[in-house]
């Protein structure tokens, strides 16, 4: 039966059936074979989406989309530029730093790539930076979008694994910052080899001025994350506050958007989120099947009979996460993999928050590994470069991010560093 479930699922996927529908149809096949009334299908689809915690998903997407369209990303870039622009290859540092700022506003990798890319690419071109390298650096920085909170994949993981969203968010800062620093080091190295130009002179006055300009954007993470960590509001409420805040900023402060544009952005985000939520809905059928027949526990027992060394098991799981990320989009991969691995992770005694971070960082790397690599596609659309060109240039950054991932897998096993 496990075989029927997984074989039919993969067959449907390869035929090009959408992930959500492939999950549903393979589950229905099993239910029919086992003679279970199909009423459970609609019942589970309803139960899967009827969740207050998941309300954070549409609104962190919407807040990110609203901020990406308006002037906020421009101001964040200017602020980062005033701090690091004077260095050799300073614009590369600015790209990563702006990505990290934006990651603290947006919960998705694509929105982060789009926000930073649209603002910075013309500037990078003008200053004679290598185009493919710059595009790939922006795509790579976009991965930080889901690691530094807020993060849509973290919310999904928290709901599936029954963990605290706030704790996951809190623990996302360190790996996210580490990813940023790694990318900056690689970018500076390239800047020296290619002799990139310096930017404007360093001036405290300029830093202060751009800081004030960017303040509205920079306040967003302070409000939403501050609210969540103090327990003042739930992550779902924080997401709605983020939307209200970005509406106020773009309508009344920067006045960079018309009402009509906002309506359009809301409709687009509604579709983006419903694509994820529809997978959540149908995967609720599959997770019922998994739980009913104890499939994840059977898989766990099978793996543990081969090895019970957490180092080896985590290595293999991380490989599976990375390979899945190559072929699948982040949210769908996370929704499918998480319930399968949970019992195994519990048995080897790894903290579920730690595992959530591995999952999110591992799948975020999947955003820059083709054929399914959303950030590369966004970067390609912005720059007009081919995916092949950007892919070739992304290798050093990819290796850097992989290093961070394996540090994240193993360091917390040796040093207690998950809060």
């Amino acid at each position, binding site marked *: 039966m496990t075989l029927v479930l997984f074989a039919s699922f993969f067959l449907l996927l390869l035929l*090009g059936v959408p992930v959500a529908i492939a999950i549903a149809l393979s589950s229905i096949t099993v239910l029919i074979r086992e003679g279970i009334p199909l009423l459970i299908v609609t019942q589970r689809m309803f139960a899967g989406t009827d969740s207050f915690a998941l309300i954070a998903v549409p609104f962190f997407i919407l807040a990110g989309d609203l901020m990406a369209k308006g002037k906020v990303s421009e101001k964040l870039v200017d602020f980062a530029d005033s701090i690091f622009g004077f260095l050799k290859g300073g614009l590369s540092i600015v790209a990563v730093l702006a990505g990290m700022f934006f990651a603290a506003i947006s919960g998705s990798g694509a929105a982060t790539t789009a926000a930073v890319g649209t603002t910075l690419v013309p500037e990078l071109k003008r200053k004679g930076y290598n185009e493919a390298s710059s595009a790939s650096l922006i795509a790579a920085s976009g991965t930080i979008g889901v690691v530094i909170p807020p993060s849509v994949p973290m919310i999904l993981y928290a709901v599936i694994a029954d963990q605290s969203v706030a704790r996951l968010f809190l623990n996302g800062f360190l790996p996210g910052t580490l990813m940023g620093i790694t990318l900056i080091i690689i970018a500076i190295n390239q800047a020296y080899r290619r002799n990139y130009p310096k930017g404007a002179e360093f001036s405290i006055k300029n830093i202060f001025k751009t800081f004030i300009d960017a303040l509205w954007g920079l306040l967003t993470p302070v409000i939403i994350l501050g609210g969540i960590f103090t327990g003042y509001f739930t992550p779902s409420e924080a997401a709605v506050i983020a939307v209200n805040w970005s509406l106020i900023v773009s309508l009344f402060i920067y006045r960079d958007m018309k009402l009509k544009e906002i309506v359009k952005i809301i409709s687009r985000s509604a579709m983006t989120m419903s694509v994820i939520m*529809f997978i959540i809905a149908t995967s609720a059928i599959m997770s019922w099947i998994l739980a009913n027949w104890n499939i994840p526990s059977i898989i766990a027992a099978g793996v543990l009979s081969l090895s019970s060394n957490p180092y080896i098991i985590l290595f293999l799981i991380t490989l599976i996460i990375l390979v899945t990320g190559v072929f699948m989009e982040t949210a769908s991969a996370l929704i499918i993999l998480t319930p399968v691995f949970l019992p195994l992770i519990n048995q080897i005694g790894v903290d579920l928050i730690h595992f959530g971070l591995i999952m999110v960082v591992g799948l975020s790397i999947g955003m820059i590994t083709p054929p399914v690599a959303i950030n590369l596609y966004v970067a390609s659309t912005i720059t007009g470069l081919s995916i092949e060109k950007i892919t070739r240039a992304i290798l050093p950054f990819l290796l850097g991010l992989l290093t961070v991932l394996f540090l994240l897998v193993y360091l917390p096993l040796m040093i207690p560093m998950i809060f």
Partner: protein
Amino acid sequence: MNIILIIQKVSHKIDSVIKYMTFLTIIGMITAITMQIVFRVFFNALSWSEEAARYLLVWSTFLGATMAYRRGMHIAVTFIVEAFPAGTRKILQILSHFLAAVFFIIIVYYGIRYMQMQAIQVSASLRLPMKYVYAVIPFSAIVMGIHSVNKILEVIFPSQPGNTAGEEVS
């Protein structure tokens, strides 16, 4: 008027209505949760806002899913299908939409059965008849079913005007 054009038109008309409905569910959620926060901080906590927001999330999920289906936005593994020559690709596309249609038909049937089963149930705080909340599931499945027939016809007769290919939200 031939049948292809009729289906195309129906698919398009329903979609433009659903676009507004989805927009309203999102605005409804923002309003409900904003009120929840405001009332909790300044007055007394509301009892209905969380439930309303949850049901609106269900509604926006399934309504939005129909829009995403019409625009081909649902995440799929396409790089294998795209590697085939045009003829095979067409057959695979038709097969994929057909399989999706089978799923939608199952959902329509069992969605309505589920509504009937819960006919007398009301929600905990809004006292809303639950059958109306559940109705979005069979409703969206009917809509996606119509879209999938339209999609299949578009693959077979690609030269029709007003194809959904490349359609954006406007």
